[in-house]
C-alpha cells in the first residue's frame, strides 16, 4: 500500500474516533527519519528549545484568519435573512436546503436524513446535494463547519468563555470518546430509516439556528442554549467534537478535498501551540515530536480548515494549500 493511501485511510480512522497513535517504523519516509534523527542531536535540540523560549516570551496572538472566518459565517447566514426580509431572492430557505439565485442547494446531512426517512431518491435533492458537495469539496469539506455553520460560531464564543472559566476552576473539560460521534452517525441514520422520521433534525442546532434567524425566535432555541451551557461548564465543544453527524458527512467530502492545511516538518519546533487551540487536535498528531511520517504532510479528513493552528503556529510550519495550484499561490 502506498504511503499516501495509508495516510488517507488512517485519517478516516482517526476521524471516526481511533486514537492517532505512534506510527510504525516502516511508515516513515527516509527523509522524515533523517530529519527526526537530526532534531534529536543535542546541539539541534538546544537550539530548538532556545527558539521556543524566545518565541513564547513575546508571543502575540494573531487573528489573521479568524476575522475572515467570522465574517464568512455571519455573511453567509445574513444572506439568508436579507434575502427574505428584503425580498431580494439571493439565497432562499435555510441551511438545511435553499435556492441560491434559483439553483437548488441541499445540506448533505439533511439530504441524507430525508432520503433515508422516505426511502426515495429525489432529483432536486440530489442536484442540491451534489452542488453543495462540490462547493465544499473545493474549499475543504469541514470548512462548512468553521466558515459557515452558525452553531460553530456560537460554540466558539462559548469555548472562549469556557477556557477562562476553566482557568479559574469554575468549569471542567470532561473528555469523551470521539468514537461516540461515529456511533451516533450510524444511530441517527438507522433511526431515520427505521422510523421514517428525520429524528436528527429534531435536535439539529444548525437547522434550528438557521431557521430562527430567518423566520423568528422559537422555543427550540432552548435546546441550543442547553447545549451551549453543557459546553460552557462541562465538555469543551461537546456538540462539534462528539455528536454532530454533519461534521462527519463534511469530513468525508474534505478527506479528498484539494484545499488542505499543510504541515512542514522542517519548520516545526513541536511546541504544541496548534494542538492547544484546535477543535480536532487529533488531526495535528504529526506535530508531536517524532510522529510525522513525512517531511511534508497534509492534515487529515476531520480538519475544519479554520486556520486557528496557522494563527497559533509561531514558525509557519502550518499553511493553507490548494493541491494542484502549488505554483499559482
Amino acid at each position, binding site marked *: 500500500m502506498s504511503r499516501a493511501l495509508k495516510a488517507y485511510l488512517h485519517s478516516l480512522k482517526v476521524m471516526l474516533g481511533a486514537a492517532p497513535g505512534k506510527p510504525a517504523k516502516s511508515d516513515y519516509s527516509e527523509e522524515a527519519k533523517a530529519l527526526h534523527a537530526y532534531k534529536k542531536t543535542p546541539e539541534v535540540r538546544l537550539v530548538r528549545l532556545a527558539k521556543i523560549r524566545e518565541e513564547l516570551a513575546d508571543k502575540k496572538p494573531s487573528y489573521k484568519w479568524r476575522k475572515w472566518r467570522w465574517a464568512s459565517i455571519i455573511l453567509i447566514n445574513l444572506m439568508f435573512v436579507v434575502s427574505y426580509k428584503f425580498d431580494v431572492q439571493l439565497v432562499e430557505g435555510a441551511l438545511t436546503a435553499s435556492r441560491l439565485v434559483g439553483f437548488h442547494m441541499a445540506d448533505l446531512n439533511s439530504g441524507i436524513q430525508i432520503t433515508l*426517512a422516505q426511502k426515495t431518491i429525489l432529483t432536486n435533492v440530489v442536484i*442540491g446535494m451534489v452542488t453543495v458537495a462540490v462547493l465544499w469539496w473545493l474549499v475543504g469539506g469541514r470548512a462548512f463547519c468553521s466558515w459557515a455553520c452558525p452553531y460553530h460560531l456560537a460554540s466558539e464564543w462559548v469555548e472562549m468563555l469556557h477556557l477562562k472559566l476553566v482557568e479559574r476552576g469554575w468549569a471542567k473539560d470532561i473528555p469523551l470518546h470521539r468514537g461516540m460521534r461515529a456511533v451516533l452517525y450510524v444511530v441517527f441514520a438507522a433511526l431515520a430509516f427505521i422510523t421514517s422520521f428525520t*429524528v436528527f433534525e429534531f435536535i439539529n442546532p444548525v437547522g434550528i439556528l438557521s431557521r430562527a434567524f430567518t423566520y423568528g425566535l422559537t*422555543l427550540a432555541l432552548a*435546546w441550543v442554549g442547553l447545549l451551549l451551557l453543557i459546553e460552557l461548564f462541562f465538555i469543551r465543544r461537546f456538540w462539534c467534537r462528539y455528536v454532530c453527524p454533519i461534521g462527519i458527512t463534511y469530513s468525508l467530502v474534505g478527506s479528498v478535498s484539494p484545499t488542505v492545511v499543510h504541515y512542514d516538518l522542517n519548520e516545526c519546533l513541536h511546541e504544541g501551540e496548534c494542538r492547544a487551540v484546535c477543535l480536532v487536535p487529533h488531526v495535528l498528531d504529526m506535530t508531536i515530536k517524532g510522529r510525522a511520517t513525512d517531511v511534508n504532510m497534509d492534515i487529515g479528513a476531520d480538519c475544519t480548515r479554520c486556520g486557528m493552528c496557522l494563527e497559533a503556529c509561531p514558525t509557519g510550519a502550518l499553511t493553507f494549500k490548494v493541491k494542484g495550484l502549488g505554483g499559482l499561490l
Partner: protein
Amino acid sequence: MTEPKAKKKPAKKHLSRKQKQRRTLLLSMAAGAGVTGVGLAGYVPVAKNGQTRLRPPGALDERLFLASCIKCGQCEQVCPVNAIKLADIMDGFGLGTPYIDARAQACDFSCDATQCILACPTGSLSHKINKKEEVQMGLARLSSPTTCLARQGQGFVGLARGEDFPGIHRYVEVDRWNPIPIADHPYDLEICDLCVRECPIKNAISMQPLSDDPNDKRRTPVVNTDVCVGCGMCEMICPTEPSSITIDIAAKRESA
C-alpha cells in the same frame, strides 16, 4: 497564586489509566444515549396517529410529509399572505415543518397558483398538483351550526374580524393583484354569506334555504365535499367567535 493551598484540598482520587479510559467510555455512552433520547422525545407529539396541523397545499400524507420535509421554509417565503408558519419544538419531529393556522391567516390562493408547491425542493408539497382546484388540505365543515348567523336569518354589517385583526385577503374587486387587510374591508350584508362570498374555489360552498317557506330568511352554508379543497378561507372570514365553519383536516374529498 500567593500561598500554597494544597494542604486544604481533599486528596484527589487517583485513577489508573485504565480506570480513566473506562470512565470516559461510560460517560460517552451516557452522553450518546442522552442525545439519542432527546432526539427520540420528538416522537411524543407525533405518536398519535393522524394529523394535528393543517398543512400547506399539496402536502403528502402526514407520515410521508414528515419524512420528506427538509425543514427549509422556502414555502413560507413565497406565500403572499404569509399563511404558512413553521412548527416549533412542541410539534416534535414536525419541528420546522410548515403549517397553516387558518383562523389566523388562511391560504386564499392569492398567489394564483400554488407557489408553495413550486418552492418546495423535496416534493413534500406534491409537485403533481398544478392548480388550486386539485389541492386537498381537508374539508370545510359547519362545525357550530347554532352560532352561524345565516342559519339565524341574520345579516352582517361591519368588519368581519374586527379592526385589530391582522389577516389579509385578496379582494379581486378591490385589487386584482395585492391582498389587503380584512380590517380595511367592511361589509353590509342582508344575510351573512361571508364564507360563500370569499371562498376562492368555485362552487365549494353554497347558501341553501333552511326551509321551503319563501318568507323564511334563514340560510345554511352547504359544503360541496367534491369540490372543497380545505384552504380555510371560510374559517378565517367567519365573523362568529369561535368560527362556525372550520376545516376538518382528517377529512379529504373522495374525488381527487
